[in-house]
């Protein structure tokens, strides 16, 4: 499971050899640790306009040293480029070239974060071209960055502003080590629905202090497939962030499930999510023990890989039943239940296979693309009224499952991403935790890939 090459290439002599031979040189990613300092070095806020000015003020309030222009030779923790004022493609030149100077000064694990408006909301073709152009430019920057640095974008929808609590929540997420393996991604932010975010969370977004280390305090989260792998890590990270975790898995996985529940101080609930009464049992358990269900993480999933030509009904049907049909049925029951919070969050695990397809995974890709379809349609039904549903699409993650991939294929799969390595279960869990938090209140119907900007689906 461990990436031996990553360890090797980060020791002095092999690092020099790899450089001389032009071999991939993946960096050890900057991941979240308790008491994390968001930006030990100055942060550039590039771009003109009131939105950029307001955002720079907020960052100053977070005790971050803010620069509005690059100072020659000064290291930068991050470059935030605010492009919401762009009205035609020509407007991109100045801010992008400024960004070009900044990326040379980024420290290892640095961040590039674009803040822009959606092409879908543009007033005409020229503005749409400018806005869509940023998408291509920032994705290219993500490919160019080295040293574990990433580039991502925050797309403001409707009347969302650069200082909306959700915008700031997304900004904090991208600045933080929590987003270590999220690269080349754009997340759309709508203005934060009133009442969907606690005063405390809003104050935190504004001040950068307070609940930052326990953003899920007081919330009850259900995690399916929690007995091992990514699910167990999601349970751990949600609990670390303050949530009470109900760890769900099939009875057969009960022993590991109990270990997970005991290690995170949660409760274990053995059930098969494909059973008709699965949601009822989850709701009963949560109502009795905790009152309200705040967070649902649909993580449970199976693979039954076969080329379509060799596919049998049981492989196809079992994958659909577990990976998507169960979620649809449970969501319907959760959403209809008064136990599910008015500001409830659903986070569903998709996969890059569901986006790009993958050889031998037509059934799996159908289920995971289905998750994306479900998330978008359900998000529209929620309509930004307080509840939200989003998907997280992991790429190549170092788990027991990917450890079974033949060694050479596995090595290639790892190096195909911009970060030249596989992600860790914690990387997926961090994104799930972010989407589960009050700080993500204005994010609804989004699919965030945790794939290190992988070139292909995995």
């Amino acid at each position: 499971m461990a990436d031996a090459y990553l360890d090797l290439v980060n020791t002095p002599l092999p690092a020099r050899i790899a450089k001389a031979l032009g071999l991939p040189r993946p960096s050890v990613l900057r991941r979240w640790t308790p008491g994390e300092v968001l930006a030990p070095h100055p942060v550039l806020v590039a771009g003109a306009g009131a939105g950029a000015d307001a955002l720079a003020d907020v960052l100053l309030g977070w005790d971050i040293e803010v620069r509005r222009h690059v100072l020659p030779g000064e290291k930068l923790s991050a470059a935030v480029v605010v492009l919401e004022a762009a009205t035609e493609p020509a407007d991109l030149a100045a801010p992008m070239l400024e960004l070009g100077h900044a990326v040379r000064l980024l420290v290892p694990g640095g961040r590039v974060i674009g803040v822009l408006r959606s092409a879908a909301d543009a007033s005409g073709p020229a503005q749409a071209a400018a806005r869509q152009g940023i998408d291509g430019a920032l994705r290219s920057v993500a490919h160019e960055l080295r040293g574990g640095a990433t580039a991502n974008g925050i797309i403001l929808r409707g009347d969302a502003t650069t200082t909306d609590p959700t915008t700031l929540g997304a900004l904090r997420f991208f600045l933080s080590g929590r987003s270590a393996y999220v690269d080349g991604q754009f997340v759309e932010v709508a203005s934060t629905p009133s009442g969907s975010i606690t005063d405390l969370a809003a104050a935190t977004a504004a001040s950068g202090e307070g609940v930052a280390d326990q953003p899920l305090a007081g919330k009850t989260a259900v995690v399916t497939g929690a007995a091992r792998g990514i699910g167990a890590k999601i349970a751990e990270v949600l609990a670390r962030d303050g949530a009470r975790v109900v760890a769900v898995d099939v009875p057969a996985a009960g022993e590991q499930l109990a270990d997970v529940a005991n290690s995170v101080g949660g409760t274990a609930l053995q059930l098969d999510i494909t059973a008709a009464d699965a949601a009822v049992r989850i709701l009963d358990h949560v109502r009795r023990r905790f009152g309200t269900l705040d967070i649902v993480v649909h993580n449970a999933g199976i693979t039954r890989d076969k080329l379509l030509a060799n596919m049998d009904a049981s492989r196809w049907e079992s994958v659909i039943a577990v990976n998507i049909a169960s979620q649809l049925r449970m969501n319907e029951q959760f959403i209809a239940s008064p136990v599910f919070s008015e500001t409830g969050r659903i986070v569903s695990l998709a996969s890059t296979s569901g986006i790009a397809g993958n050889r031998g995974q037509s059934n799996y890709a159908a289920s995971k693309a289905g998750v994306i379809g479900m998330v978008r349609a359900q998000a529209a039904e929620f309509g930004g009224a307080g509840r939200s549903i989003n998907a997280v699409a992991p790429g190549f993650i170092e788990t027991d499952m990917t450890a079974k991939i033949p060694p050479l294929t596995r090595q290639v799969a790892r190096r195909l991403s911009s970060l030249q390595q596989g992600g860790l279960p914690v990387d997926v869990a961090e994104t799930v935790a972010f989407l589960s938090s009050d700080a993500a209140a204005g994010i609804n119907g989004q699919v965030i890939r945790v794939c290190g900007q992988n070139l292909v689906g995995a």
Partner: protein
Amino acid sequence: MADQAGAQNAAQSPRTAVVIGGNRIPFARAGGAYAYSSNRDMLIAALDGLVARFGLQGERIGEVAAGAVLKHSRDFNLTREAVLGSALSPETPAYDLQQACATGLETVVGLSNKIKLGQIESGIAGGVDSASDAPIAVSEGLRRVLLDLSRARTTQQKIRILSTLRPKDLSPNAPGTGEPRTGLSMGEHQAITTAAWQITREAQDELAYRSHQNLAAAYDRGFFADLLTPYRGLMRDANLRADTSPEKLATLKPVFGKGLDSPATMTAGNSTPLTDGAAVVLLGSEDYARANNLPMLANVVDAEAAAVDFVQGDEGLLMAPVHALPRLLKRNGLTFADFDFFEIHEAFAGTVLSSLAAWEDEEYCRRVLGLDGALGSIDRSKLNVNGSSLAAGHPFAATGGRIVASLAKTLSEQGGRGLISVCAAGGQGVVAILEARN
């Protein structure tokens, strides 16, 4: 009558003790999945599964009581050691109890009484047994030599003591289920009782068959999803034979009672096998359950222990529950008609059937139990509805916890009142009443 009795009992008890839930590991056949697990390992696994189910991590439970029948001398503090190895607070006190196969049920009774008295708010009762990892003792001769050696001062003395050692002293004493006072195994004792009550082979096989059928059906409908946590790769009781039939059971050769005048009827199919496993039950006061938003499956109403003279007298070794039950019913003003579920531990099919026959026998009930007439019949459709020891197996001290948790859940789902009967070595037995809360 039943309502009056309940009120009367409530008046006697200062508080109510409730069953909140339970957890056990699947029972394995001796030498099987848990061949290399100790009693302590299995009791920890059962406790940790319970802790996980109810979120008790780091909690100081009022008291934990458990025990084992086959016990190493090093496990003198077995339950406390298991608590220390579990996810419970290390400040949770614990004690060991041993009453042969009634150990598990007796821990439930003891802790329930403490809860009723207000001495504790919560308790975990249970038991564990490993027939695989059983202690093997050195012979009495070797033991005496070793003890004398430890006291010897001179080399001469040591040589003299060692010279008394005989080859036969070197063979170890394996544990058995033999009765110390009769030398007969439990199966041979039961064979005498089974024959005395003229219990047929067919009736015993039918009971065993139903035990397997009921247990398999309970698994199939997910009954054990919140009563059981897999352990060491075992998901279900290893002894369960969902596909067995009276015909298959009829092909097995008798193993007990072959020396009796009547034909031997007891086989490996209608007797419990040697089994490894552990089971625990979470008990609490109503206040404790409410304060922690925990379920209340059933009330622990009352219990009675009895013992019979199987050595000098002519009562069967495993017939003590037959004596305990009328006393318990009388104290609570109840009859068989007041019960909806009967959990009679299937040490052997013959034990259950002999007990039923005895309660139905007017002459026996008058003469031996001192009753006015027959105690009555039990509706077989209410008996061991989710299977019992013949199918699940019988890790001696774990059986009480298995039965209490399963019956409490059944009562919470279907309402009513349940009776538990567990026989034990030494001519002892414990019976208890659980009651649904609505």
